[in-house]
């Protein structure tokens, strides 16, 4: 009986571990790699990395928002808007702004849309879901109107390099993730973010500037979406008013899968990295196994549902995992 109990105990500890999703990713790779060795080939690993970097950037912003107990549905529309505005500014018609200037405008614009979202949520006391849904519709409609559904091509090489040269994209992503990690775990603002997510009233009573913290989370989310837009636009060499439109569920799914609570108050950048890594590797592995898109979508949906169930169970049974 004793060995079984030990195994049981180990299993329980593992399910509670913050490395659960990373462990599942390793398990997935170990299970699939013998049948598709391409999964762990250098070329494929580079492919996985270049695809997951923009996702991770957006999910980083989403993590900050979800820790406060909110959600940002407008991220994909921010990607589209900043993509076409940045490209327009760099084009000859738009004045031929240098890449650095256009990137700066894109990031500022993303953060501004985030600030508007945050302001509407805190000042009007509206649910984040409704505010960011409305924002998503307005901003994406504006991007389509601005371009009349036309893509913009012929972007400068210096801009394309940001999305196409893996070391640059990796450095940008790592810098952002490190900054977000340090803010969450080494600053008072980080502790306030968790406090707002756990109980905004208690956070307010204990002196946390709830409104400022909430608005800041949405500003960060908008900024991250704009940075991801830079990478995606560069990668595809095209600015599009529908860029990233299909990414929303992957972003929220990966963040929740990592362990960031949909109920607020819990989350880590490292967890989000694990969630994004798992979802990207899963997608890639299923593709390599030559499964149909229907199976891939079904599997991903099931996995995200499992993550949500695990989250709900953790809340119900009050399992403590480090924030």
């Amino acid at each position, binding site marked *: 009986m004793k060995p079984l109990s030990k195994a049981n105990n180990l299993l329980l500890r593992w399910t509670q571990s913050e490395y659960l999703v990373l462990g599942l990713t390793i398990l997935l790779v170990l299970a699939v790699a013998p049948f*598709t060795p391409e999964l762990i080939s250098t070329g494929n690993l580079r492919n996985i990395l270049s695809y997951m970097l923009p996702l991770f950037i957006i999910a980083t912003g989403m993590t900050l928002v979800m820790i406060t107990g909110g959600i940002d549905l407008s991220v994909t529309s921010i990607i589209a808007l900043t993509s076409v505005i940045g490209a327009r500014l760099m084009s000859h018609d738009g004045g031929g702004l240098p890449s650095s200037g256009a990137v700066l405008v894109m990031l500022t614009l993303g953060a501004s849309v985030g600030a508007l979202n945050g302001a509407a949520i805190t000042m009007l006391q509206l649910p984040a879901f409704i505010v960011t849904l409305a924002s998503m519709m307005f901003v994406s409609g504006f991007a389509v109107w601005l371009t009349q559904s036309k*893509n913009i091509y012929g972007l400068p090489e210096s801009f394309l390099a940001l999305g196409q040269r893996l070391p640059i994209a990796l450095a940008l992503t790592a810098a952002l993730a490190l900054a977000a990690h340090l803010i969450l775990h080494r600053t008072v603002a980080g502790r306030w973010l968790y406090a707002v997510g756990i109980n905004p009233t208690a956070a307010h009573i204990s002196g946390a500037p709830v409104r400022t913290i909430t608005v800041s989370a949405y500003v960060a989310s908008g900024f991250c979406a704009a940075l991801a837009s830079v990478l995606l636009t560069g990668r595809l060499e095209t600015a599009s008013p529908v860029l990233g439109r299909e990414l929303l569920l992957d972003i929220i799914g990966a963040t929740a899968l990592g362990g960031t609570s949909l109920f607020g108050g819990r989350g880590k950048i490292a967890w989000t990295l694990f969630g994004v890594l798992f979802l990207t590797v899963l997608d890639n592995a299923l593709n390599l196994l030559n499964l149909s898109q229907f199976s891939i979508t079904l599997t991903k949906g099931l996995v995200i549902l499992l993550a949500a169930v695990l989250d709900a169970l953790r809340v119900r049974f009050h399992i403590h995992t480090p924030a």
Partner: protein
Amino acid sequence: MHSTHSSPLHRWLALPLVLFAAAAFLMGCSKSEPPQSTPGGTKQLTVGVAFETLQTEYWVAGFEAIKAELKQRNITMLDAVADQDASRQLQQVKTFITRGVDGIILVPKDAKTCIPMIRAANEAKIPIVLFNRPADKTDAVSTAVVADNRTLTRDTVGYMIEQARKTNSKHKAMIVLGDLGDINAIGRRDGFEDALKGSESIIEVVARVPSEWNQEKAQAGVVNALQANPDISFIFTSSDFLLPSITSALKAAGRYKRINEPGHVILGGFDGDRTAYQMLKDGYMDATGVQDVYFEAQQSVQALLDRQAGQPVREVILDPGFVIHQGNLKEKAARMWGANIRSK
């Protein structure tokens, strides 16, 4: 601290893990390895087929036609669908390249985002064919097999104008446009305008409804146009997949009539899908331009093989398609992919 007994929580948490581990293992086991060589000893060819979406009947029919064509030639097919996400499609194309496929057939999201994909295939020296959607001008090398959208639309609308002439009255017309970021939609719009030249005394275009290839937008636009111009009696849709939106709007306006009934709206489309076939058969639709999906699939595979063999291949291979109408329905139905889906 931790109990050694199995609590309900243990079981709840363990269940997904056990299921996951089993599923991952089964997924691995279920993979059918493509054979590396044929019985004759020659290398077994593998082609990666990347579709942007499978959300309309046309793309499903195209996918199935390519699959059948490859099977017939004993070529292994790997497939991927990008769910309308160009970034994911780029990843999928690169995955094909990593797997060392011998050729790629691509249905891109649009004419521009596919260029990095073509370039990646070029760098890996893997021939790439674009199915039904060509790329914009680029130095990257590919072959596109596309319908002659402009000519086929011109001929379809030409047939509709002939029918309009027979009524001896002037008609107010509506065109439902596609996504004008899609070169196919532009070709169909231009074909419509070409056909109308010289027929201004018969046809007056009073509504150009944008749909962006979206059923809801199309329906709202058609409803609005019919309210503003209740006497519209000539409608062309840039794709048959928008027909349900149009028929719904016509029914609501009491204008959905068979060809021989008074008040019939002359109706034409493009694609040749299952709905169009049924409407032609039931006498509600006058004509549609059929994309010959079997021809396109056959030409796509042939172009890949030719490129692989180092033979010259044209940059664009045009599918002339054909107009199917009340006069030739029985004769042409066998070649209409929408009729074949229906009969399966």
